[in-house]
């Protein structure tokens, strides 16, 4: 397989950031109340991922190793600010719907994770493809979760009501508990599939990615268990 296409496949299927690595759970749970919000959030994150991967890959030989994480954070934060201003100007309704979660793209583990694990070691074009693949994988997962939640909780998909009158939607699915439930079911279905085909072990509770501070704790724990 072409190495550029391989990057896309890797991001969408093999290492899907949401469903396999379980990174970036905050926006996944928070904005998946509507399918449209899922697409909007997914595409915003994709834009930031591609831009930050490109810049970091171009600067990879100039950023000293000791200050690389702060440098990455500044680059990512700048890209997020640019994206936020663009959304505010051109898509005000999406800006309303996503609210605080747009600036919070900065602390999305997927972005820093890809910067550290991929863009800092690979040439620009490959890094952009990697960002694109990861972004599409994230968008697909978010949109699927949004569709399921919108259908069950609101009786519609992409804003079009499809439930026959007289059938009441289950309101809890567009409320916070519904987010946890739907994502839990998604991962359980994937787990069931993996058990049947025996391809891989079960999805762990968080991906072990050094770059993501908040996610590194379980890795430290695992290291400790091995040492003990």
């Amino acid at each position: 397989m072409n190495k550029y296409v391989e990057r896309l496949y890797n991001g969408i299927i093999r290492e899907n950031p949401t469903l396999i690595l379980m990174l970036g759970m905050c926006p996944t749970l928070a904005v998946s109340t509507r399918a449209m919000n899922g697409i909007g959030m997914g595409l915003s994150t994709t834009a930031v991922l591609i831009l930050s991967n490109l810049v970091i890959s171009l600067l990879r030989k100039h950023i000293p190793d000791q200050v690389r994480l702060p440098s990455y954070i500044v680059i990512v934060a700048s890209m997020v600010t640019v994206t936020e201003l663009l959304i505010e100007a051109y898509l005000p309704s999406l800006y309303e719907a996503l609210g605080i979660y747009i600036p919070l793209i900065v602390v999305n583990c997927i972005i820093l994770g890809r910067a550290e694990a991929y863009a800092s070691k690979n040439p620009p074009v490959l890094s952009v493809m990697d960002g694109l693949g990861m972004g599409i994988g994230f968008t697909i997962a978010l949109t699927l979760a949004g569709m399921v939640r919108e259908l069950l909780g609101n009786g519609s998909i992409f804003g079009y009501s499809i439930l026959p009158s007289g059938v009441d939607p289950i309101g809890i699915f567009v409320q916070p508990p519904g987010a946890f439930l739907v994502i839990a079911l998604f991962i359980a279905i994937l787990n069931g599939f993996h058990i049947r085909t025996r391809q891989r072990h079960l999805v762990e509770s968080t991906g072990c990615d050094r770059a993501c501070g908040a996610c590194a704790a379980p890795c430290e724990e695992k290291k400790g268990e091995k040492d003990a």
Partner: protein
Amino acid sequence: MTNLILIIVGSALIHNVVLNQFLGICSFLGVSKQIKASLSLGGAVIFVITIASAVAHLLYTYLLAPYGMDYMKTIVFILVIAALVQIVEMFLKKTSPAIYTALGIYLPLITTNCAVLGVALTNVQDGYSFIESVFSGFGTGIGYTIAIVLLASIRTRIREEAIPEAFRGAPIVLIAAALMSIAFMGFADLSF
């Protein structure tokens, strides 16, 4: 005074940072394997969120707002939080080794905890005063600690249960979180 109590109860229980706002989910799912570790992380989060809310508020009111640099707040806040965590870590290491060993590895992990940045940003959005920001940060930290310690207790209980194979690992933890979230929805009817 009632206003401040309302802010604390509101941010700790009614709009619980994890179960209602979905901030800090990463560490909420990752660290909640043991009650002790959860308590330490909760302590570190309360500490950092309270200080970060105060510093972010001061910076915003006296530096960003007067010069019309409102759009810089995301970049400034994330840098301040990262630096702050470092300073707090060094300060604790020197002055109180006991607290330092208790919070241990959890302090540096807080930099990318979206709850800290989230609270700093919502404080600005809601137009809170200095005292209100500090209390809202503190309440959020308390809410985070309550949620993660409860989840850790649930996880120690279900560890030995015969869970269907596909639901082992992440799914059962998320379902436990969903049930907790339903319970916390009850707080929405609190009225004073």
